[in-house]
């Protein structure tokens, strides 16, 4: 087990949810101060080093220019900072695991830089860091991710449980999370985590996380794995109270469904990059909510597991290794992410939120999902309807706390 996975396992054994921020700033001094504050927060924490957008798209020249001009970046440019600089950022933090979070369809330079800095935990995936993050062909991403995984010996989390941040029905999130983890394992990674992002309905989410655990048990029995929940990844409440409520509900969801780790969101989410203090407050608030929640044994089955199983099996039955199978699956539309503009996504699937607040399919394209799961009663897909769906969770939480 890696230092990162080990810390998560120890907390889980003690019945504590590990909480983690999304945090990255360009300045090494600020980055270090942020990591220290997270370590010292009143919660079981692991640290995060979030990489900026220039580094994500491989434009290291623009990242260097920004550092040179003192322009603000939305993250830490780990490839552009000297390895010794990053080592100094981490100096004395031994025993405090730090994960590098990026969003890159070609992660090779980032994997190299984090290893050079002595780090061993990161995340992403050939699909989840291509379709929503890049205009690179999926084929290139699969190739780059294969190479990066072959040379990697740490802990790797799939971002497949987040696709587009919002409005992706749970079965597809669960399937992609499992499929990317299977891809990692095929390429020699022995410690993985599977992600699931909180969506629009807590019962549906709990059912999805249970489905994720069932499928991980079935397809990843020979590697070390745990489940990480992301606090809502779509449009966030604008009020501090609404944002806190949604973040706390994510912590309750994680505990209820037996996840080991949670990545939080702050009161600044809807507006701008959060400060260190806002991150610490979100971590402590989530830890408190988690401490008061309890795991649940049974969940209502509305078919998430059956749908996700059908998707995973359909892909793994395709010829070739998992990367080849994923490519073929997207080409044929067996996997099809709603509202994703990437040219390698079929783009026939659509989704909506029904009256009970659950995510439903409006159409499934060529995915092997039974027609009975399709609900055609959704609202008209005009700009107002789309904006209402995107803001539904935010509005509900802002209203509930007023």
């Amino acid at each position, binding site marked *: 087990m890696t230092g990162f996975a080990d810390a998560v396992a120890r907390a889980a054994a003690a019945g504590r949810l590990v909480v983690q921020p999304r945090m990255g700033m360009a300045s090494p001094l600020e980055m270090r101060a942020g990591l220290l504050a997270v370590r010292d927060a009143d919660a079981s924490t692991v640290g995060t080093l979030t990489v900026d*957008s*220039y580094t*994500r*798209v491989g*434009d290291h020249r*623009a990242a260097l*220019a*920004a550092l040179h001009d003192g*322009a*603000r*970046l*939305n993250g830490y440019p780990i490839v552009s900072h000297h390895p010794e600089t990053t080592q100094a950022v981490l100096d004395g933090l031994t025993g405090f695991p730090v994960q590098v979070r990026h*969003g890159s369809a070609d992660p090779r330079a980032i994997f190299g830089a984090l290893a050079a800095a002595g780090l061993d935990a990161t995340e992403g995936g050939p699909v989840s860091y291509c379709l*929503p*993050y*890049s*205009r690179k062909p999926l084929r290139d991403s699969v190739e780059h991710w294969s190479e990066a995984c072959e040379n990697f010996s740490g802990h790797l989390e799939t971002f497949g449980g987040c696709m*587009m*941040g*919002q409005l992706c029905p749970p079965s597809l999130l669960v399937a992609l999370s499992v499929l990317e983890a299977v891809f990692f394992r095929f390429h020699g990674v022995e410690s993985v985590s599977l992600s699931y992002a909180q969506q629009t309905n807590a019962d549906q989410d709990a059912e999805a996380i249970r489905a994720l655990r069932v499928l991980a048990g079935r397809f990843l029995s020979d590697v070390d794995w745990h489940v990480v929940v992301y606090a809502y990844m779509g449009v966030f409440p604008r009020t501090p109270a609404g944002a806190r409520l949604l973040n706390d509900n994510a912590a309750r969801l994680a505990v209820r469904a037996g996840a080991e780790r949670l990545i939080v969101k702050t009161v600044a989410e809807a*507006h*701008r*990059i959060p400060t260190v203090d806002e991150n610490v407050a979100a971590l402590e608030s989530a830890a408190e909510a988690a401490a008061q929640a309890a795991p649940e044994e049974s969940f209502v089955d509305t078919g998430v597991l059956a749908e996700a199983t059908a998707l995973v099996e359909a892909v793994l039955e395709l010829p070739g290794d998992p990367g080849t199978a994923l490519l073929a699956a997207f080409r044929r539309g067996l996997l099809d992410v709603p*509202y*994703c*503009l*990437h*040219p390698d996504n079929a783009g026939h699937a659509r989704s909506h939120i029904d009256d009970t607040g659950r995510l439903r399919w409006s159409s499934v394209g060529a995915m092997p999902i039974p027609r009975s799961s399709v609900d055609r009663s959704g609202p008209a*897909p*005009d*700009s107002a309807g*789309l*904006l209402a769906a*995107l803001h539904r969770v935010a509005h509900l939480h802002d209203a509930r706390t007023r």
Partner: protein
Amino acid sequence: MNNLVLLSGTASDSHTWNLVYLQLLLEEAGHRVINLGACVPPVLLADECEAEQPDLVVLSTVNGHGYQDGPRALAELRGRPGLAAVPVVIGGKLGTGGPEPAQADALRAAGFAEVFDDDTAIARFREFITAHALCRTAGTAS
């Protein structure tokens, strides 16, 4: 006139819900839209503009690098002989710390026809495209 809008993300920005939404909004207002999607480098943007000759270019970015990526995109467009005059607007969450009026003014000074970076963005944009369409109609009629 063909009422064509070229809609694009910026070089470092992968957000697309903004683009999906703006495409619908523009189409509902009667415009034809070419949506280039996310992570569009300046050269690709300029190539597409040369090929399509849009009446308006709309840049949308929310990742916080707008003050850097916006001017780079505009400079590439203005460097192409056929694109010296096409109006270009930009909007979204342009910096990392909320709206900054001084930076928005700098973008206008750099040559953006309008900057939409705060809570009034969509209301002002609707007015802008209505006025823009009227202008174009007047222009072709005379």
